[in-house]
């Protein structure tokens, strides 16, 4: 193994993480899927198991760690519930049930824990997802940082979305991207302790379940949606690179069309970080059949996602497959590289 120690960069959802996970897990697992389903060796939001009646069971699991656990726009509880619900939705599934596993640090205030878990339970309730089981552990002080929540959400679908973008597809985003990632950067920059000020700032996480967007959309346009993903770690750049690589296509992105909130842009600029790599927790990216793309955008708008827009398209090129080519705001071109390393501010 090249690396002797795990670095933060290994958890940033970029190239380093994929390499490590491939080496330590995927390559060593013999049975990678249930017959007829989708498994660990395909990069997507979750797994599929055929139920024998034409339907599929959709399963997705995720562990959530944010420090501090409360942040503008939400907390680790809302994130844990919405995040895994969204993963199931992006597979084309209707979320039905959830399991949660909570690890808490000794000494963590019960009141705070109650608030966090209350938020989580509220999201599951509002999205009509049953909480059917879970696990609860306490670690000695210092052995874990405050609280970690793992959620597993199960759903069913007749029309799974297995991400394979096709030539000519339009890339659609449901709205502003990068909001959650900007807040996380803010916390990492050590501003997490200025909680009151943070609340007054313009940066808010966009964390929310996308049920009201995805269920009607999948209902109406299943088959036309060739891929769906929520751009969490690694951001829009991460999703598009994964798609380009997996489908052996070129994705062309028009930077000027990507909807982004002013404060997110400004904050990213201040730190010298590219906002296309910032996570969203309440946005969807779709690859859609061009014949219905405009219609899909209009329908998304009617569902309350007013900033939905076409931001790019999928092209074919044997020579350059796997690349994402970005058209800049002045019309020049550059490669939008896959995420790598942890996002750090720069001065040069």
């Amino acid at each position, binding site marked *: 193994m090249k690396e002797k120690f795990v670095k933060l960069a290994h958890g940033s959802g970029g190239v380093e993480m994929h390499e490590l996970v491939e080496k330590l897990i995927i390559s060593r697992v013999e049975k990678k899927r249930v017959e007829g389903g989708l498994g660990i060796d395909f990069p997507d939001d979750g797994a599929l198991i055929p139920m024998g009646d034409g339907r599929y069971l959709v399963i997705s699991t995720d562990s959530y760690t944010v420090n501090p656990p409360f942040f503008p726009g939400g907390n680790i509880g809302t994130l844990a519930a919405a995040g895994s619900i969204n993963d199931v939705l992006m597979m084309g599934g209707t979320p039905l049930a959830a399991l949660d596993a909570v690890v808490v640090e000794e000494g963590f205030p019960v009141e705070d824990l109650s608030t966090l878990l209350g938020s989580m339970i509220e999201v599951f309730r509002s999205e009509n997802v049953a909480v059917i089981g879970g696990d609860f552990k306490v670690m000695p002080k210092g052995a874990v940082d405050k609280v970690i929540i793992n959620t597993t959400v199960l759903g069913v679908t007749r029309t799974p979305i297995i991400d394979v973008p096709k030539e000519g597809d339009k890339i659609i985003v449901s709205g502003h991207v990068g909001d959650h990632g900007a807040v996380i950067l803010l916390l990492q920059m050590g501003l997490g302790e200025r909680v009151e000020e943070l609340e007054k700032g313009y940066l808010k996480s966009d964390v929310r379940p996308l049920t009201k967007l995805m269920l009607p959309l999948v209902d109406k346009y299943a088959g036309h949606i060739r891929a769906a993903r929520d751009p969490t770690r690694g951001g829009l750049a991460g999703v598009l690179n994964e798609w380009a690589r997996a489908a052996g296509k070129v994705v*062309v992105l028009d930077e000027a069309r990507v909807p982004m909130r002013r404060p997110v842009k400004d904050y990213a600029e201040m730190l010298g970080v590219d906002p296309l790599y910032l996570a969203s927790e309440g946005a969807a990216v779709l690859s859609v059949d061009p014949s219905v793309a405009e219609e899909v955008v209009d329908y998304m708008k009617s569902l309350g996602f007013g900033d939905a827009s076409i931001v790019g398209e999928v092209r074919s090129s044997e020579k*350059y497959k796997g690349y994402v080519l*970005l058209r800049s705001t*002045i019309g020049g*071109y550059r490669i939008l590289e896959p995420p790598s390393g942890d996002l750090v501010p720069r001065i*040069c």
Partner: protein
Amino acid sequence: MDSRLVIESVFRENRELAYQLRDYIVRMLEKLQERWGSPPRLKVMDFCGTHEWTITHYGIRSLLPKNLELVAGPGCPVCVTPSHEIEAAIRLALDGITVYTYGDSYRLRTVKPVRGAFSLAEARALGGSVKVVTSIYDAIFDAERHGKPSVFLGIGFETVAPGYAHVLLGHLMPKNLHLLSLVRLTPPAMFYSLGMLREKPPEPPVMGVIAPGHVSTITGAKAWVPVAETFGIPVVVAGFEPIDVMMAIALILRQLLQGRAEVEIEYKRAVTFDGDLRAQAAISRAFQVVDAAWRGIGFLPRSGYEIREEYSEHDARKAYGIPSMKVEDWRKDIPPGCKCAEVVLGKAKPTDCPLFLKRCSPSTPYGPCMVSIEGTCAIWARFGEGGLTEEMAKELGLLRPEGR
């Protein structure tokens, strides 16, 4: 809010003006051909790393005609920071001293590892105390709070020097925080690289320089007058938005057409001819100019700032016995076959190196220009400079035909 609005709509998100300037550039090159009697082929040096970033990030090369090349100069303080200084910082971090660094130098790799760590990022993974900050002020704030021994890794050019100077002169740092000054001065490096180019002119020759805008806010545009006079080429001080850079290229061509070789300021909204005299005074009170080592280049006379004796209580070199490098200790930290030195000086493009994207790539870096993710070779490889993006855009039928 307004300044951002103007800057964005005028200088950043302005395809219309970008295409307009591109057309002017094409026309002016045609006129140069009439004047010179042969098709002009020329290089313009973008000295500053941030200019190179703008050029890459906005795909400016893909907008320019092929006979006008942009070549990056040695203007990245991260890339020119000698390996041994980063090694010293890693050693401190692993010894339990908190090291504050900008994000740029956080990932900068050393030539040889220190106790298994090739960078401050790796030192942190090994348990070292490394904190990424965006300014020395963040470090002061944090160090005051925890009170433990700490060092600020003070890389940068003239642009950061006034900030460090005010901190030193005002004794703003708590006793437990020391500054490791790695400040480098840009004019000596520009002189050196252009001098090297004059000795052995590249083909095509460098016929203009885009000078660093933010350095010039401090030094004033006057700092570049000797460059224009000595080398007889136009120097345009430019801002960092894509339109600024394209405008600067157009202004350089205008000077060539008019037979001028002067210093001109494109970046008037921030730069004056004299610069900030108060800042210059503060800098010279706090620092003395010394000969300094530049990674990949060598020892340049009078090209670095060292903290003056009067403020040595804040100097990390004194507090932790970190020696400055002596000329006789200088070893080129460049491996055999690697063209990094020429790339850093603007003599060669990354694509001129036989190792580029063959033996040497971002995943298996060989030379320092690829090792540092901000290095010119790494940037070209990551973002497809040197023709790759144009080829891709052409293959996909996206590129606008040349001219109109």
